[in-house]
């Protein structure tokens, strides 16, 4: 079908940078623990340069050795520096192609193509990647594969050619508005990450900044008043928060969800463009998550739980579908676009008599902390009893947010850990269902239900604790394929 091709030379550069990134930590370690004597500096310097040159050489050689071609219905790749590897992937095993553009890609009109295959079993390099090819080339590959697959479908199902034209049609399901982007950034939890990175960075600079003399200055400042210190700390936080804000905004700018006949395509990013494609039939469940910062604004994020993804590539398993939207609008935005409906119908709640059990569970977690606090701080440790107030409030929230609902073939579960989740799943996607009943629950006629669905290589479960026993039986009966009542 085509001759063997090389990647764009930029691939060598990205390889090189990637390798260099991996070397940064040993470099820093060397930098920190290395010799401080002056003659060591020269060794360090020449050594570093030698390593960089070797890495660059490996990057270039790797690029020279990598070739790919499309031939006999297969994507064929040959690569490897010391060990020559050949990987042939039949077109019909290819689930999707994910395009992303890094900063280096964009000036040259290049994309990175990640080939997702069905059943990427968790082997080390389960996925195939074309690090840098031109956009035209990428589109050409996509077309060839789509055509090959289309032919296959026609052969097996004998559908009309009209099918092909329809597939190209893309519908925009959702595009992030600037207001939503701002809300998303302000309520994201990235602040902590930036802050800890800053602390780590400052502690690495021991040698460069003359802290000793700086401390004397600081002492003067401190003597001028605690207010100034407070202001400085506050400014530090503010700076970290703004950095996180900008980071999130750049990452999620132009977040767009598109839909073709059998795929969902999500693209995002300002500097680095990313695109991820999820075939509709790989979607196992939809999850709405409301974190404590977003809940007061009525905001939530929506995730698709997908059966795709490998061990190394966990992001294929939980894909962010809507980063921050009003919860009331979710059903409206998604409408008929997904195989799973997300209409928030009223949920059935656990009965009042299970509230004490929720409260008790919450307090049990706190007990060891209180005991430890009293043992260590004696009388002052008694203050830790306040923890019970928090745990009770939290337990009450967990109780209040627990709920379930059955809607035809669909089971919806609402539960809270730290974040409030609502899980929507179809019966055929539920891998197994557990009904649990402890001795204490039996006395109160309560039960616990867990439904497990596939997520990437593993499972995630939706659990709802202490619901009415009759309700639990109803869910169990709903899931059972047998005619006779299981209870």
């Amino acid at each position, binding site marked *: 079908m085509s001759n063997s091709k090389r990647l764009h030379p930029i691939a060598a550069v990205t390889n090189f940078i990637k390798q260099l990134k991996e070397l940064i930590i040993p470099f820093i370690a060397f930098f920190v623990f290395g010799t401080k004597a002056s003659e060591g500096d020269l060794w360090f310097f020449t050594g570093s340069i030698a390593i960089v040159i070797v890495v660059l050489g490996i990057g270039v050689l790797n690029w020279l050795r990598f070739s790919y071609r499309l031939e006999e219905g297969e994507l064929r790749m040959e690569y490897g520096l010391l060990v020559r590897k050949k990987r042939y992937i039949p077109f019909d095993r290819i689930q999707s192609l994910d395009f992303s553009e890094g900063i280096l890609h964009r000036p040259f009109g290049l994309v990175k193509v990640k080939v997702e295959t069905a059943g990427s079993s968790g082997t080390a390099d389960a996925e195939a990647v074309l690090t840098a090819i031109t956009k035209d080339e990428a589109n050409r590959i996509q077309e060839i594969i789509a055509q090959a697959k289309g032919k296959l479908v026609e052969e097996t199902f004998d559908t009309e050619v009209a099918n092909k034209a329809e597939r190209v049609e893309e519908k925009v399901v959702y595009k992030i508005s600037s207001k939503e982007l701002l809300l998303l950034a302000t309520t994201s939890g990235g602040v902590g990450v930036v802050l800890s990175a800053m602390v780590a960075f400052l502690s690495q600079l021991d040698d460069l900044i003359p802290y000793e003399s700086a401390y004397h200055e600081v002492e003067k400042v401190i003597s001028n008043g605690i207010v100034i210190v407070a202001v400085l700390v506050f400014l530090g936080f503010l700076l970290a928060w703004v950095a996180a804000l900008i980071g999130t905004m750049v990452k999620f700018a132009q977040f767009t969800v598109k839909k073709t006949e059998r795929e969902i395509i999500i693209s995002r990013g300002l500097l680095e463009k990313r695109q991820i494609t999820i075939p509709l*039939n*790989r979607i*196992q469940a939809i999850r709405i998550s409301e974190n404590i910062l977003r809940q007061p604004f009525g905001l939530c994020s929506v995730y698709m739980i997908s*059966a795709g993804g490998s061990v190394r590539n966990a992001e294929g398993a939980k894909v962010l579908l809507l980063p921050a939207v009003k919860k009331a609008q979710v059903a409206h935005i998604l409408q008929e676009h997904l195989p799973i409906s997300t209409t928030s119908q009223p949920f059935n709640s656990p009965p009042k008599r299970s509230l004490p059990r929720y409260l008790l569970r919450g307090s049990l977690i706190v007990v060891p902390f209180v005991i430890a606090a009293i043992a260590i701080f004696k009388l002052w440790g008694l203050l830790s009893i306040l923890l019970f107030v928090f745990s009770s409030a939290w337990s009450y929230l967990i109780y209040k947010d627990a709920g379930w609902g059955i809607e035809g073939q669909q089971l919806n579960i609402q539960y809270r850990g730290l974040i409030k989740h609502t899980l929507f799943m179809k019966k*055929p996607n*539920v*891998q*197994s*269902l*557990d*009904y*649990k*009943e*402890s*001795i204490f629950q*039996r006395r109160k006629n309560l039960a616990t239900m867990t439904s*497990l*669905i*596939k*997520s990437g290589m*593993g*499972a995630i479960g939706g659990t709802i604790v202490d619901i009415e026993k009759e309700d639990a039986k109803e869910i*169990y009966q709903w*899931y*059972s*394929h*047998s005619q*006779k*009542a*299981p*209870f």
Partner: protein
Amino acid sequence: MNEPQKRISDKALSVWRITGAITSAIMAIMAGGAIWLSNVFSWPVWVVMAAVGAIILHVYLYVYLFPLLRWKRWRYEVREQEIELQQGVFVVKRTLVPMIRVQHVDTRQGPLLKKYGLATVDVSTAATVHEIPALPVEEAEELRQFISRLARVADEDV
């Protein structure tokens, strides 16, 4: 209660008791060490008493009580459309696994199970693994073939 009908082999009781006895023996060695140390350093008497008490309790629970409760509770049933399991000691757990979700079935056998002519059946779905412990070998073999035949009939994409 319409619980699943079939029980696992009653030899499971012996296997679990032996397993419990082995862990108890290991515990006893550790307790022996503690008692010896308390002799050397003349620790208070209650240390020795606690160690002995812990061993007795462990033997009672893991050699006598838990295996019995566990065995009494364990039930399973393989129907045309689904597999149902019931297990637990203090918490009764019942699990439904639809045939269409079954990906493969394994049997396995450790040295202890082998001695008693038993085998464990593992039923795997795309996301979970469910175990039916300690069935007679022929029964386990039959069950494996039976389930894999049914699962193939009910096969369908994930």
